[in-house]
C-alpha cells in the first residue's frame, strides 16, 4: 500500500449549502422589494376655501360615479379617450369658445363618488397627469419619458426650460369633495 501524504484535517463544508439556504429563506420571507414610486400630488391647504371666480369654459369637469363610469363635460366617456380630450381642452387657446382660453387658465375639476374604486381614480389621475406631461414634453421637443426623467431628477430641477414649461402649462387640477350617492 502506497503511503499517502497525510492531508491536513479539513472542516467538513457540506453543511454550508444548508446554512446558506436557511439564510436565503429568511431574507425571502422577511423582506420586500421596496417600490416607493407613485403619483405625487399636493393637497390644497385647509384654509383655502376662497372660491376663485372661474369661467365655465375654463373648467374641464370629470366626474366618476359608484359604477366607475366617467362623465366628462356632461358626456359619458371611456377612460381611453380622456387623455386626448383633456389635451384638446388645455391647448385650445381660445379657438373654441366653449373650451379654455389658454393653458394657464385651464382648470380640470375632478370629482369622484365615495363608491368609486380607487384604481379607477388612479387611472383617471394618471391619464390626466399624462395629458399634462405629454403637452409639456411636446412643447420642449422631447419624449414623455425624457420629460419625466427631467422632472424627477433632483439635480436638474432648476433647469430654466422646465420652469418655463411649468409656467406655460401649469398643472391645475382641483379635486372636489366626493359625492355620496348610494353604494359607499
Amino acid at each position, binding site marked *: 500500500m502506497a503511503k499517502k501524504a497525510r492531508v491536513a484535517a479539513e472542516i467538513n*463544508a457540506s453543511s*454550508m*449549502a444548508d446554512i*446558506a*439556504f436557511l*439564510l*436565503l429563506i429568511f*431574507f*425571502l420571507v*422577511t*423582506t*420586500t*422589494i*421596496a*417600490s*416607493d*414610486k*407613485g*403619483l*405625487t*400630488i*399636493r*393637497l*390644497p*391647504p*385647509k384654509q383655502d376655501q376662497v372660491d376663485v371666480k372661474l369661467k365655465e369654459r375654463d373648467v374641464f369637469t370629470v366626474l366618476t360615479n359608484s359604477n366607475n363610469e366617467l362623465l366628462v363635460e356632461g358626456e359619458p366617456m371611456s377612460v381611453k379617450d380622456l387623455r386626448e380630450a383633456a389635451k384638446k381642452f388645455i391647448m385650445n387657446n381660445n379657438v373654441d369658445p366653449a373650451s379654455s382660453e389658454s393653458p394657464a387658465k385651464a382648470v380640470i375639476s375632478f370629482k*369622484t*363618488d*365615495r*363608491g*368609486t*374604486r*380607487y*384604481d379607477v*381614480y*388612479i*387611472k383617471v*389621475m*394618471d391619464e390626466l*397627469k*399624462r395629458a399634462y*406631461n405629454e403637452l409639456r414634453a411636446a412643447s420642449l421637443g422631447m419624449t414623455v419619458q425624457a420629460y*419625466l426623467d427631467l*422632472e*424627477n431628477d*433632483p439635480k436638474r430641477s432648476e433647469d430654466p426650460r422646465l420652469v418655463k414649461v411649468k409656467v406655460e402649462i401649469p398643472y391645475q387640477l382641483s*379635486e372636489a*369633495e*366626493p359625492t*355620496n350617492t348610494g353604494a*359607499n
Partner: protein
Amino acid sequence: MPAISTASLPDIVFMLLFFFMVTTVLRETALLVMNRLPAATQLQKLEKKSLVSYIYIGKPKDTGKFGTEPRIQANDALIVPKAVPNFVYSEKDKLDEVERDKITMSLKVDKEAKMGIVSDVKQQLREANALKVNYSTGKAVE
C-alpha cells in the same frame, strides 16, 4: 450516470442571498390589510426615505376580528380617519424641525378600496397640514 458535482451549490446560493440582501428592505410593519397597489405610468420616485410616512388602506386580512369594511393602518394599528392627524404629528415629531414640512405621506391603498375612505384620509391630512401626498403605485406597462 456520473454523479453531478454539487460543489458549487453554496456559491450559487450565496449569490442569490447577496442579491436579496442588497435589493430588499426589511419590512418594518406587519401588514394587517390587503394591499394590492394599482399601476400607473406617470410615476415619481420618493427621494428621501426618512421623510416618508406610510398609511395603508384596505380590507383587513382578518375579517373575523376587524370586519369587512376597508380600514386604515398606520404603523402597527388600525385607526379611524379622525386619528390620522395625530399619526401625522407623531411622525413629524420624529423629524428635525427644518424637515417637518417636507414630510410626504405615502398612501398605499388597495386597488379595490373605495374613494370614500381615501377622501376621508385626505381631508384629515389637510387638517394636519401634511399636504405632500404620494399615491403609491406599481409601474404600469404601456
